[in-house]
C-alpha cells in the first residue's frame, strides 16, 4: 500500500515537473517567452497582474477553507442557531480600501504602458529627402493571406514578413475584405486590421529567428474572418540589420529579371500562362495584388501559410485549393492542368529565391 503510494507520488511529481517545463510554450509563438520589447513590457504586466491576483485568490481561499472547516453543521450540532450578524462597517471598509489600492497598483503601469505602446509619433518623422526615418511596413490582410509592403524600400512580399532586429518597426494595418487581426505572439500584442481605417503600431524584434525550430516566428490572424480563419497563419523572419539590407537589395533586384521565353523551363512558361494574372514574381511594386507575391517563394517556410514547404505540398495545394483552405479565393488547377504540369510549376516556384 505504502509502496504504491510512493510510486504515485513520484509520478505526480514528474507530471508536475513536465507541466512546469512545458508551461512556457514554444519559443516561436509563446507570449511567455517574449522576443521583443513590446512583448516583454506586456509580459511584465502579466507577471504583475498575476502576482496581485494570486494574492487575492490566496486570501479568499484561506478565509474560505477555514470557514468551511470550522463552521460545519455536522460539528456544531443540528440545533445550533448562529448569531444573526448584520455586518461590519470596519470590515466593509477594509475590503473596499485594500482592493482600491491593489487596483491602483495595477492601473498606474497599465496607463503608462498603454501610452508607451500606442506611441507611433516617430513613424511620421522624415529625413531631408522626405523619407520616413523608421522602417514602415504596410500590412494588408486578405481572405486568408497577408501582404507586406515596404513603401520606403519599394518592395512587397507576402505570407512571410522579413524584418531587421534591434529597431522599432512601424506597421500600417488594413484589411482588404473582412476584419482580421495581426498578431505575432512571441513579439508583442495584436492589433486589428479594420476595413475602413489604417491602424498603426510598432513592434521590436530582439532575436534573430534563424535559431528557432523552423527559423521563423509564427504569426496568426486573431479575428474570426471566415471558414479558414484558423489557417491564416504567416511567418516572421528576423535578420540582423546587415542581413536585412542584403535581403532588401536582393528583393529589389527581382524587378530587373526579365523572362527569357526561349530559356524558360516548362514550369515558368506555365506560370506565365496560368498564374501571372494574380501572382507577381517580382518583389518590386506596391500592395494591392489579387494573390500573394511569390518573388521569394522558395525561401519561405510554409505553402499557403500553413502547409509543409515541399514540392508535393505545392502540387496538393494547386490541385485543390478549396480542400486545403476552404473559402479562399484562389481557383483550383487539378482539372485544368496535368500532374506533370503542376509539378513543373511547383518546381519553378520552389526555385524562386532571393537568399540562395
Amino acid at each position, binding site marked *: 500500500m505504502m509502496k504504491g503510494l510512493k510510486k504515485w507520488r513520484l509520478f505526480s511529481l514528474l507530471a508536475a515537473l513536465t507541466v512546469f517545463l512545458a508551461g512556457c510554450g514554444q519559443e516561436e509563438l509563446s507570449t511567455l517567452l517574449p522576443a521583443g520589447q513590446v512583448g516583454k513590457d506586456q509580459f511584465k504586466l502579466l507577471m504583475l497582474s498575476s502576482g496581485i491576483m494570486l494574492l487575492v485568490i490566496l486570501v479568499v481561499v484561506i478565509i474560505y477553507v477555514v470557514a468551511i472547516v470550522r*463552521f460545519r453543521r455536522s460539528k456544531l450540532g443540528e440545533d445550533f442557531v*448562529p448569531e444573526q*450578524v448584520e*455586518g461590519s462597517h470596519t470590515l466593509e471598509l477594509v475590503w473596499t480600501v485594500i482592493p482600491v489600492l491593489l487596483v491602483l497598483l495595477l*492601473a498606474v503601469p497599465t496607463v503608462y504602458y*498603454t501610452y508607451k505602446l500606442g506611441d507611433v509619433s516617430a513613424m511620421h518623422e522624415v529625413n531631408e529627402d522626405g523619407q520616413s526615418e523608421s522602417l514602415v511596413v504596410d500590412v494588408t490582410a486578405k481572405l486568408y493571406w497577408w501582404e507586406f509592403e515596404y513603401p520606403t524600400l519599394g518592395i512587397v512580399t507576402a505570407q512571410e514578413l522579413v524584418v531587421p532586429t534591434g529597431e522599432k518597426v512601424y506597421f500600417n494595418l488594413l484589411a482588404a475584405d473582412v476584419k482580421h487581426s495581426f498578431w505575432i505572439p512571441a513579439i508583442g500584442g495584436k492589433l486589428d486590421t479594420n476595413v475602413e481605417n489604417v491602424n498603426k503600431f510598432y513592434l521590436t524584434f530582439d532575436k534573430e529567428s534563424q535559431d528557432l525550430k523552423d527559423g521563423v516566428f509564427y504569426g496568426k490572424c486573431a479575428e474570426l474572418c*471566415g471558414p479558414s480563419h484558423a489557417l491564416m497563419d504567416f511567418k516572421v523572419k528576423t535578420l540582423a540589420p546587415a542581413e536585412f539590407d542584403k535581403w532588401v537589395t536582393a528583393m529589389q533586384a527581382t524587378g530587373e529579371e526579365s523572362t527569357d521565353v526561349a530559356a524558360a523551363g516548362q514550369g515558368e512558361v506555365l506560370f506565365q500562362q496560368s498564374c501571372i494574372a494574380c501572382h507577381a514574381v517580382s518583389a518590386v511594386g506596391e500592395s494591392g495584388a489579387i494573390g500573394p507575391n511569390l518573388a521569394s517563394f522558395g525561401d519561405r517556410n510554409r505553402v499557403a501559410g500553413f502547409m509543409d514547404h515541399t514540392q508535393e505540398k505545392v502540387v496538393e495545394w494547386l490541385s485543390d485549393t478549396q480542400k486545403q483552405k*476552404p473559402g479562399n479565393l484562389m481557383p483550383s488547377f487539378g482539372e485544368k492542368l496535368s500532374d506533370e504540369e503542376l509539378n513543373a510549376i511547383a518546381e519553378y516556384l520552389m526555385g524562386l529565391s532571393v537568399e540562395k
Partner: protein
Amino acid sequence: MSSVAQKRGFGATLWDWLTTVDHKKIGILYLLGGGFFFVVGGIEAMIIRVQLLTPNNDLVSAGIFNQIITMHGTTMIFLAAMPILIGFMNAIMPLQIGARDVAFPFLNSLGFWMFFFGGVFLNISWFFGQVPDAGWTSYASLAMASEGHGVDFYAIGLQIAGGGTLLGGINFLVTIINMRAPGMTYMRMPLFTWTTFVASAMILFAFPPLTVGLFLLTFERMFGANFFDPTMGGNTIIWEHIFWIFGHPEVYILILPAFGIFSEIFSIFSRKRLFGYSAMVFATVLIGFLGFMVWAHHMFTVGLGPTANAIFSVATMAIAIPTGVKIFNWLLTIWGGSIKVTTPMLWALAFIPTFVMGGVTGVMLGTAPLDYQLHDTYFVVAHFHYVIVGGTVFGIIAGTHLYWPKMFGTMLNEALGKVTFWFFFIGFHLTFLIQHWLGFWGMPRRVFTYMDGQGWNSANVISSVGALFMAIGITIMVYNIIVTSIKNVRVANDPWGDGRTLEWAIESPPVFYNFAQTPLVRGLDTVYIEKMEGNLSGITPAEPVQDIHMPNGSFIPFMLSLGLFIAGFGAMFRTEEPWGMAVLIIGLVWTFAAMAMRSLKDDLGFYVKKEDILKDMKRKGGQK
C-alpha cells in the same frame, strides 16, 4: 380555474399551458425551453471539443465549425442562460415579495412565447443548412460577407427573442416597484429580488441598443441599407460599439441573478442572515451601473487609441471592487454560521473559488496592454467560461436544485445531485483551466483546427476529456430530474428546513393565487423572524380573507409571437421567392390582428371567491 387538482385530458392540459399567464407556470415554461436549448448548446460544445481533440482533425468542416461555435455562443447566452434565469425570476421573485402574480401577466406570457419562437427561428436554420457563422458577436464585415441566410436567421431570431426579454425586464421592474407586500421595503427585499431588479433595469437599457443594432443588420442584409459597408460610407466599428454597449451589460444581466441565487443559498444553508446586506445591495447596484461604462474593453485591439484604452482599462478594473465586496460578504456570511452541505450549497461553495478565478482573469484582460496579447486567444475563452459557467451555470444548477421542490413540489435526489456536481466541477476545471495556458502559448480562439507541432496537443486533449466529464454530469442531472419526477414524492412548505423568505412559507408548489392573504413583512428574512418569534406558519397576514382578483389566460401571446415568426421568413425570402413578400405581409397582419384583438377585447379577469379560498386553506390546514 380551481386549485383543487383534477384529472384533465391531454388537450385541456396543453391548452392550459399554451394560454397560461400564471407566473409560476411561465417560470416552468422558461425552465423547460431554456433547459432544452441548454442541452442543444451543450451538444454543440461537445462537437467543438471533439473536433479540437487532435490537430488537423476533420470531424466537421471549417464552415460547419464556425456555424457550431456561433450557435453554441448564441444559444447558450440568449436561449439557455438568460431564459432559465428569467424562469427563476418568474417562479420565485413574486413569491419573495408577497405578490400574487407579476404586474403584467399578459406581457409575461408574450415575453415567453417571443423567446420561444425566436429561439426556434434561430435553430430552424440547421434544417435550412444556412446557419449563422459570424460568431455570436456577428462583427459587421464578416456578417455582411456571410453567404446564405445564416446571419439573417441570427438577426431576426434574436430580434424576436430579444423583444421577449425586454418585455420580461420591464415587467419585473414594474412588479418589484409596485407589488411588494405591505412592509416589504426596498431594504427588506431578499437579495434574489434585488438582483432581479437590477438585472431587469439593465435589460431595459441594454436591449434597445441590441434591437437597434439588429435592425441595422437586418436592413443592411435584407433591405439594401448601407450602415456598415465602408465603400458606401458606412462603418463596421459602429456595430462593434453597439453590440458591446449591449453585450457587456448582458454578461452582468447573466451574472447578477446568479449572485442573487447564491446569496439566498449561503444564507439558508448557513442559517445566518446575509452579512453586510446593505453593502451587498449597494455593490449590486454599482456593478449594474459600472456595467454600462466598460464596453470598449472588448475593443482594446480595434485601435481606438491609447486614451480610450486607458480610460476603459481603469473603469474595468473598478468593477473588481464591488465584486470583491460581494465575495467577502459571502465568505463572512458562512463564517460563524452553521454550514450544511446540501447540493445547492455544494454548488454555491464551488462558485466562490471558481468565480474568483474568472474575476481576476477579467481584471488581467482589463489591463489594456496585456489584453493586446490575450485578446481573442484561448485565455479569453477560459476567462468567460470561468465567469459564465462558474458563475451563471453553477448558479442555474444550484437554483434548479434549490427551487425544484418549490416549483414542482418534489425534491431532486441529493445523492445524484452531488454526483452531478463532482463530474461537472472536475470536468469544468479540466476543460477550462488549461485553456489559459493555451492562450499564453499563442492559440487564437475560434479556430476550427490547429497544426501539429505548436505545443498545443496535450492541452487540447485534457480540455476535451474535461468536456466529457461535464457532459456526464449533465446527463446524470437529466436522469435525476426524470426519476424524481416519476417517483413524485410530495414535500412540505420548506423542504430544506431553513427557509428564510416568503416563498418557503407557502406550500410547494403554491396555489395559483400564491397567498390566501397578502403577508405583512416585518423585516429582512421575514419568515425567519416570524419563526423565531414563535409563529410557525412564518406569515402574519396583512388582510382578512377576501375575494382575490386574478387574470384570465390568453392564447393571444402565442398567436402574436407566431405572427412575428412567420413574418421573419417572409423578410428573409422576400426578394428570392415569389411568396416571400406575401408571407411577410401575412405575418405582420397576423401580428397586428393579434394586437388589435388584445386592445379591443376587454378582459377584466375573474375573482377567486372567498369561500373557495377558505376551502383551500382548510384543506392545507388538514395536511399540517
